[in-house]
């Protein structure tokens, strides 16, 4: 693992950000706490997605599957009388295990096939939760025992829980970014054949990355379920969420440390201030953003070399970049 100066600065900035957010939690009103919790949750999902989708470069569209799975594991466990934090840990383990099993099959697919395979998991799990009424309550949904205490304290508790989870996801991200595991994932993203030829156990790395994504998604879902105290299939396994998470991370920069965070912040700001006023334009705006990002800044906020971009824009058009000969 190489922790050079830029990496240490990123680590310090990141940890300070979360510490600040945690302290600020004491000053926020109920609405602000809710937005903050939602932001932390989306950050966790984006950072989880970033491991498989960003560092490893597998276009995963299944975060909602793990999120929903976490929701139901938490709900069912809590209904069965398991204490709240233990139920979360159970969801973490369940998410990792499910990801491992699904990964054994899905990670043999590539590109679009992988994307479609993962999106199918969301659909399948939603249908299961819709129809397995004795366990999940079916379409009616499932009530989760509400935490004792006044609403404000409870709200603050979930805010801190989500923020802690986000900090954990951030630390995992930065370790991956600097470690031989993350280095291997980046090699896999570019050329799997060459990666195995330099001695990387490609399949094991892929499964491990997928498990981390699954565990983070599932844990976020569990905390969410305990917080809202009621879940139903269409809320837990939402196709919109599965796409939004990928889009947010692309916006911020795939395979970067701060990309997922920046994407989540941008998204929450957009949602709270724009969509609240233009609710009918929601899908249109989202679509427009996707197109703009993919066409003009595919690297996202943190994955684009802005200096080079502006330098190129400032220069006259005659300077056609010479393509490397193959």
């Amino acid at each position, binding site marked *: *693992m*190489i922790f050079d100066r830029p990496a240490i600065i990123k680590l310090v900035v990141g940890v300070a950000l979360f510490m600040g957010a945690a302290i600020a939690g004491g000053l926020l009103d109920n609405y602000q706490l809710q937005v903050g919790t939602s932001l932390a949750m989306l950050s966790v999902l984006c950072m989880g997605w970033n491991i498989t989708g960003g560092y490893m470069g597998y276009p995963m569209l299944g975060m909602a599957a793990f999120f929903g799975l976490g929701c139901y594991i938490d709900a069912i466990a809590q209904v069965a009388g398991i204490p709240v934090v233990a139920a979360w840990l159970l969801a973490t383990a369940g998410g990792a295990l499910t990801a491992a099993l699904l990964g054994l099959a899905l990670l043999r697919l590539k590109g679009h096939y992988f994307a479609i395979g993962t999106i199918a998991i969301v659909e399948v799990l939603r249908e299961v939760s819709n129809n397995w009424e004795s366990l999940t309550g079916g379409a009616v949904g499932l009530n989760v025992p509400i935490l004792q205490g006044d609403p404000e304290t409870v709200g603050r508790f979930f805010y801190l829980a989500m923020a802690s989870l986000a900090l954990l996801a951030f630390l995992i991200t930065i370790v991956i970014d*600097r*470690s*031989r595991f993350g*280095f*291997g994932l*980046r*090699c896999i993203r*570019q*050329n799997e*054949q*060459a*990666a*195995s*030829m*330099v*001695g*990387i*156990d*490609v399949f094991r790395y892929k499964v491990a990355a997928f498990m981390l994504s699954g565990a983070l998604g599932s844990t976020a879902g569990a905390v969410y379920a305990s917080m809202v105290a009621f879940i139903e299939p269409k809320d837990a396994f939402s196709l919109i969420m599965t796409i939004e998470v990928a889009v947010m991370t692309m916006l911020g920069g795939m395979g970067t440390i701060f990309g997922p965070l920046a994407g989540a912040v941008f998204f929450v700001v957009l949602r709270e201030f724009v969509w609240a006023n233009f609710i009918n334009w929601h899908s249109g705006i989202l679509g427009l953003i996707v197109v703009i990002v993919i066409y003009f800044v595919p690297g996202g906020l943190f994955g684009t070399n802005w200096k080079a971009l502006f330098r190129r824009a400032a220069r006259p058009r005659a300077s056609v970049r010479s393509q*490397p*000969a*193959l």
Partner: protein
Amino acid sequence: MSASADKPILELRNVSRVFDGIRAVDNVSLSFKAGEIVGLIGPNGAGKTTLVNLISGFVRVSGGDVIYEGRSIVRDKPHAIARAGIARTFQIVQPFAQMTVLENVMAGAIYAGHCGMRQAQEKAMECLAFTKLASFADKPAAELALANRKRLELAKSLAMNPRILMLDEVNAGLNSSEIDQAIAMIHEIAGQGITIIVIEHLMRVVTALAKRAVVLHHGAVVSEGPTESVFRDPQVIEAYLGNKFAKHFAESMSAMPS
């Protein structure tokens, strides 16, 4: 010392590979000694690259066995074989295009070379210096010209600390002076005790490098021995140039006053 030096480091026993009924590699048995350079030649489609793929675990054998350092590796996965010390380059270069040249070479050192990240950086710089790529260390691999990409493949393989290095046409597409440099480099690598198997189309490269050559044709070994005599073998000439020309060639050779 001499007893262990004579023992083969790599041995192929009746190795075959069938693709849809075509025997791409047909019952090949070969052995390689530590530190020797062997030329693997043959016309297009003779099965040379397939043989390399079989040794490196990239393609599974249909039959036969591959023994490396006294152990069968025929069921091992490619990454395990790479870690055990068998490195290869690809005929069509396979860089990690968006990583820097240094990172490309580091990848070889980290996994197959069993280095820590920092140690890998040093090792990679050494290999880049050896292959004369040090000045490109921070450039993206995609920006390299072909000759340098071939060198990058070589540097990456060297960083893996291999005991056997299989070079699949590392000289194809290079100009004459680049080839001379590559030949000198390969000799130097072999001097470190690394066994080298070169797949090559250019006769002058094979003669300059390998004392021993193996000729494949239709997946089978048609000739094997000292490079000079292999090139005179009528069967080899026939494999390359066809039956008619081989006869004509043999006649004109015998007609020539010696």
